[in-house]
């Protein structure tokens, strides 16, 4: 329908500067305003109004902003209107500062103003330390004003995550010239920029430049000297003597983040049943290396299970991540045992250990190991005995796997077992105790 109007405009408006054209412009503007009054969420009306502005040499951006203002007063969550406002500001070259002020005012008027927090987050990328501190204090204010409102807590979580390391797992084999990088967000290798080892630039040939990935693999001319530092994408990574790998998933606990933890703990004293406080403290622990014994996490988790039983399965999942974190913190090496931890799901920091070669996940409650499949390029030996796996076909995605044990699971497909036995890559494969017949371990 709107396209018919566009076609008519293109046919009838020959001279955009003419009086006649002005009449058309005013008419379209009035017409879309009428439609939006009765249907403020009409995709077509917003799009048409935007299109009309682009057809007119001198749009009245002040009026457009004022329209947005009125409509947002009626419904602050109208994302069509927020989008149109962003379009207006872009077209009229409105300053970032004025937009930041606008969002700050909106938030001050109503902390629940989700869309304002959201817009703010997009204006502030990337953030320097000073801005980070200011945002933390804005959010803290909101938390204390209305601790039951989700918006501030979600924003807090995003803020904290935005300071995470970009390189979360690193492996460098200097003698053979191999490098593996696990990155927090998918990246293309050519976005990394120059790579320096011991402050000298290294020429790296990356395996795949075409698509963004969370694991980047490359080769370089071998180096003799001991590797002390690796610099890439603005981060400097220290290697311990003789070590070829580093896990950097959890970020150092800075003074600013420490203050945030203190604030949340204060709030918790005033509002002992606030679920967001409990969740945020657990989040902080999982993202940052908190000092030992600062928080009793198990107690926090139990309280969550008590007052938010609808999401108990999710909190159990969080419990998994906490146990994972604890087990890994005590020993970061290329060989890891996670036996008997009642794990029903996997996640960070395990999925950032790109350097893992041996992994024992036996005696858990796993039904899938999906999270591992795209981030364990060096995994050679995987033990999954005594779990609840029904299918193992997906494990063939692990490029270095040669020893696999899946005894006492729930694999009922003889075809899958056979296919795995026939996979040339495997030198050892145990599968006894599964519902499928034939239960001897096989060494090829």
């Amino acid at each position, binding site marked *: 329908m709107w396209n018919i109007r566009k076609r008519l405009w293109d046919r009838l408006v020959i001279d955009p500067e003419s009086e006649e054209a002005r009449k058309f412009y005013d008419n379209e503007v009035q017409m879309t305003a009428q439609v939006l009054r009765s249907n403020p969420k009409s995709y077509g009306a917003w799009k048409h109004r935007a299109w009309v502005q682009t057809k007119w040499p001198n749009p009245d951006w002040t009026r457009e902003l004022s329209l947005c203002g009125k409509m947002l007063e009626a419904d602050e969550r109208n994302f069509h209107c927020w989008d149109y406002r962003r379009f207006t500001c872009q077209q009229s070259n409105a300053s970032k500062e004025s937009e930041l002020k606008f969002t700050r005012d909106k938030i001050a008027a109503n902390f629940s103003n989700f869309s304002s927090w959201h817009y703010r987050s997009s204006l502030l990328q990337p953030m320097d330390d000073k801005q980070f501190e200011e945002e933390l204090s804005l959010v803290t204010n909101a938390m204390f004003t209305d601790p039951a409102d989700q918006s501030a807590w979600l924003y807090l979580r995003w803020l904290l995550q935005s300071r995470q390391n970009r390189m979360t797992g690193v492996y460098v084999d200097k003698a053979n010239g191999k490098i593996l990088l696990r990155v927090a967000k998918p990246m293309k290798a050519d976005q990394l920029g120059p790579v320096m080892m011991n402050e000298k630039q290294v020429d790296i040939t990356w395996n795949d430049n075409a698509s963004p990935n969370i694991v980047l693999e490359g080769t370089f001319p071998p180096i003799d000297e001991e590797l002390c530092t690796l610099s890439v994408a603005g981060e400097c990574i220290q290697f311990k003597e003789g070590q070829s790998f580093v896990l950097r998933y959890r970020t150092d606990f800075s003074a600013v983040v420490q203050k945030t933890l203190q604030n949340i703990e204060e709030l918790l004293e005033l509002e002992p049943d606030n679920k967001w406080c409990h969740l945020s403290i657990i989040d902080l622990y999982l993202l940052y290396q908190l000092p030992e014994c600062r928080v009793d996490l198990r107690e926090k988790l139990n309280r969550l299970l008590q007052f938010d039983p609808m999401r108990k399965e999710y909190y159990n999942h969080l419990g998994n991540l906490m146990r994972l974190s604890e087990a890994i913190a005590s020993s970061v090496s290329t060989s890891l045992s996670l036996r008997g931890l009642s794990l029903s799901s996997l996640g*960070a920091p395990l999925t950032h250990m790109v350097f893992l070669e041996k992994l024992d996940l036996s005696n858990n409650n796993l039904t899938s190991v999906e999270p591992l499949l795209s981030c364990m390029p060096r995994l050679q030996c995987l033990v999954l005995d005594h779990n609840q796996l029904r299918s193992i076909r997906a494990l063939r995605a692990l490029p270095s796997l040669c020893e696999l044990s899946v005894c006492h699971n729930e694999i009922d497909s003889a075809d899958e077992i056979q296919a795995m036995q026939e996979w040339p890559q495997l030198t050892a494969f145990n599968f006894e105790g599964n519902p499928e017949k034939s239960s001897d371990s096989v060494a090829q």
Partner: protein
Amino acid sequence: MEAPISLEREKHVKYFLRCLDVLPSSCSHLDSIRMTILYFSLHGLDTLNSIERLSAERRDEIIDWIYAMQLVPAAENRFVGFRGSPALEQDPHIAHTYTALCILLILGDDLSRVRRSAITASLATLQLPDGSFTATNEGSESDIRFVFCAAAIAYMLDDWSGVDVPLMNVYIRRCLSYEGAFANTPMSEAHGGSTYCAVASLQLSGSLNKQLDADELSALARWCLQRQYTGFAGRPNKPWDTCYSFWIAGTLHILGMTPLVAHDENRQYLLEAQDPVIGGFSKYPNHFPDPLHSCMATVGLALSGFASLQPVCATLNIGEKANDKLDELRRIWRQKDGV
């Protein structure tokens, strides 16, 4: 405690059958999107395991009508697909093409009259440089909804040659908001419907675990789970609405997180939103039913394991039987093409 509410099956079956014939004048603005209304009605009917209430003649009549909506434009470099209705010289539209294919599968058609390769190749004419899709060549807004339609069409017709998948994935990632879920366009607020469209698209192109790592998947699941009160809401601090029992619960289904949903409460909310007089479901209890919410609520009940309803394939939003039919067709096509 109140007595549990039961499902008014027969009333809903009758409601959907009526939608096929006539809608009240208050719905006249829906005339140009008849294809969509047809989809809601037939998918709802199918989920109630009642598609056989249509006679064979009626079924053929509908199938013929759908094929009559298929259009191969005379000009070159135009999208080949299905229109929403015979009204007003419409262009083929990406959403109506998606729903047309769904309906044909639900009615057991073998898609032999579908111009498969013409449609899939011409998807390229709708993809924009930023990776998103518009709905028609003439132009429309472009956002994640049409990305989903493109992915679904490419998947169903088993041909991705008209879709630049890496570019599409770049756009999808740009729609990931700070809240951990997906918005309709980059920099917008995360929303239940957009989240479904993004996650389903990623799953359909096999990109889900490559584009989102375990942490992001965890944050996404968390955002979805926090939307449940009894039923689901589409965004934080918004009222719950029956259609999100599909958009959000469907997303969780695709993520393999269905066990984390509180199903009893969800079912209870949906049943409360039934209209016990004329059938159908509304967005909240004691409101007017409409085809969209009637369909989504029915599917929402099926996703929550309500007995006697047909299981749903969440990535395409069609029933299991229709999905099986699709799998069979894809097998046949691959054999013929020697793949």
